[in-house]
């Protein structure tokens, strides 16, 4: 596969090396000439010195024949413009953006960037999964600008333990989409009984997730 990456910072650099190691053809566009020289010494001609938001520089990097385009610049603004040029000027089939500000994610999705990866969110999710006492885990965005899919384990002494899914009063825009029990995962039919140590996967909104968490974990 031919991949063009914009930005050879922390993310772009390791991405370039990993993709090369996996046998892909890669060009990474980097604005800083001094950095390009260092990278050239290490990786050879995969580095192209240029502005990732300049049509001519992206053309020089061969964006027109790229199957995948990855925006991984230092600023989200740059990543956005680079991805939009790739998509609309060069008709690249798959555009991927590594976004820094969580709040920019919806915009990238609305504008048709195919995959939006949020480094900050990944770290937060890793923290939530790794640190006990913060068991609400963000699984992914649900498509809408505000919707998110979360997973919450039902604690030992939760008030909802022993009740049916249909009886649990959730915030208005939240609903359970899966009940994961020890042996199997169940669709949340009204008569499925929730027990301690089950895990509820729910669709919720940014505004409601705290309220949802309190309903599920309240004693």
């Amino acid at each position: 596969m031919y991949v063009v990456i914009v930005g050879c910072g922390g993310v772009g650099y390791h991405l370039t090396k990993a993709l090369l190691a996996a046998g892909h053809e890669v060009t990474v566009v980097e604005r800083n000439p001094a950095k390009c020289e260092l990278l050239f010494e290490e990786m050879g001609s995969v580095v192209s010195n240029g502005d990732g938001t300049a049509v001519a520089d992206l053309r020089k990097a061969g964006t027109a024949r790229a199957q995948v385009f990855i925006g991984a610049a230092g600023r989200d603004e740059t990543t956005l413009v680079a991805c939009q040029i790739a998509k609309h000027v060069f008709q690249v089939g798959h555009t991927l953006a590594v976004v820094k500000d969580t709040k920019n994610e919806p915009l990238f999705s609305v504008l048709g960037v195919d995959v939006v990866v949020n480094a900050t969110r990944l770290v937060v999710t890793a923290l939530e999964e790794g640190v006990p006492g913060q068991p609400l885990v963000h699984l992914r965005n649900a498509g809408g600008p505000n919707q998110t899919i979360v997973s919450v384990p039902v604690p030992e002494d939760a008030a909802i333990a022993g009740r049916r899914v249909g009886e649990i009063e959730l915030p208005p825009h939240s609903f359970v989409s899966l009940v994961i029990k020890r042996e199997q995962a169940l669709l949340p039919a009204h008569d499925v009984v929730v027990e301690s140590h089950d895990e509820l996967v729910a669709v919720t909104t940014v505004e409601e997730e705290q309220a949802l968490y309190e309903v599920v974990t309240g004693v």
Partner: protein
Amino acid sequence: MEAIIYGGGRLATTLAQELTEGGYTVTVIDSDADYLESVSAPPAIQTIRVIAPTMQDVLAEAQLATTELLAALSNDDQSNALVAQMGLHVFKVPAVICRLDNPDLRELYSGLGLKTVGLSEMDLFSRIRQHVAGETDD
């Protein structure tokens, strides 16, 4: 009626004054404190200083959701493109104007439904382009 101007400069100062006279409540967003002080001399013009690069917070604070007009006029094409598209697609502002000095970007974003303006130099550039392409003006 509310209007938000992102990015300063003389262009923004003039626009802010004209809009104020035309009955708009104007908010100017910029990173330069001295500039903002100069622009807010008429009391009707509010200012917000951008410090951290959290554009969404700044735009939410400026109450973009209830504004009628957003003009992204900073000297940074990329920031303007992000702010303008945020206004248009996330906050659904009815009128959005985006300054883009790079003619390639103007072409791209005009095609994507954004109202774009460039510096007069850029108009000159496009005229030279037309001339080179063999088109005549009149």
